[in-house]
């Protein structure tokens, strides 16, 4: 079961910078609020790119389409786990949909 509701929305935390390194098949993510540099694998990279303020449902749908294009299949628990990891690292945050942005 997902820890997120389908309507929970997600976006990059303020100041987070993504630096794709396509030659090496990964993306670097810098989190200035907790200074650290993280190396994202392609799945985490895709989720971080998709976290543009949209809902969990929308992110999961787009993620599923992208994975399907590569001949794979994405499960909702995988998407939830991936987002949870990005949240733990301070790369992605939940958007407060009740009018103001969450922290």
């Amino acid at each position: 079961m997902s820890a997120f509701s389908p309507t929970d929305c997600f976006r990059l935390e303020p100041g987070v910078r993504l630096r794709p390194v396509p030659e090496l098949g990964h993306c670097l993510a810098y989190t200035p609020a907790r200074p650290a540099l993280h190396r994202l694998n392609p799945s985490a990279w895709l989720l971080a790119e998709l976290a543009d303020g949209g809902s969990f449902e929308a992110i999961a749908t787009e993620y599923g389409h992208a994975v399907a294009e590569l001949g794979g299949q994405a499960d909702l628990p995988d998407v939830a786990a991936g987002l949870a990891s990005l949240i733990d690292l301070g790369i992605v945050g939940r958007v407060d949909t009740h009018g103001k942005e969450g922290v």
Partner: protein
Amino acid sequence: MNPRLTSPPKVAISITGACPLSCRHCYGDCGHAPQDSELGIEEWRTAIRQLASDGVISLHIEGGEPLLKPGFLGLLGEASQSMFTMLRTHGTLIDAAMARALRDNGVGRVLVDVMGSTAETHEWFTQVPGSFAASLDAVRHLVDCGIPTDVLVILTRQNAPEIQGILDLAARLGAERVGVLRLYPLGRAKRIWSTIALPLADQMRTIAELRPPEGLGLMQSWHPNNHNCCWQSAAVIANGDIVGCPYLREDVNHGNLRETTLQQAWETARLWRTLRAGAVEQSCPDCSASEGSHGGCRATAYAWHGRWTAPDPFDPILNDGVDVSLLPDRLLPA
């Protein structure tokens, strides 16, 4: 074949050649005052903005002593908004207030150089009494501020018996890792090479015998960690010269930041492109299946053999009878 990056994600800068210490082995031949030719702080700030917009996301800052650069904290604060910043320092200027200032300006990691586990050995190198205690205090202050902190040591004849002691000391101080680095024939180190350089077998034995205390990371740059990492390396020294790697500063110049950008040099400098392509005459077969040392470090390969494709003599597999405790003829003082 090495990966071909269209632009470098990580860059190292030597922001100043000024330093209050007088290390006998100083690679930059640093003095107490900056050279007239150094980039000013505003030139550095402009250059760093350009680096960020060209895709650099990790900035390693060293010197000299970076904290001596006027305006350094402001530069750090700006850079750390868009780049992971690492500061290499000997630490003698870091008291509790400076550690807090570094944290508040977003530093990501600090690397503190020591040259021994005792004041006697460390200060034989630095030639400044009290500098050992000051460096250790710096590590304490940085750790107290929650800044990830590493200790670095360059392995020499004098400190080889003390490397384990440095590991133990670093663990007690709360450092996360110790990096044991190879000695390079640069700057003042060249002039005292036969006094401070160890034969390769002694270096390898010293590294093999190390037992890091639990919880302390050990980084070391001997085989198979002597990667030919020129493919991803980019560096600028205090006068703005683009040198690819700080260890190449005496043999390479890909342009100057006053005349070009690092990205332009990355794309156009012929020698840089050659070094990044990674052609080597010989590689260690044992590690070539993984990322591999791939011929080893280009700086020492070139220093001893005068060819960019030569094998790294600090690699025991590729050493071929070279005594690295003796300076190569091409580097002997005239």
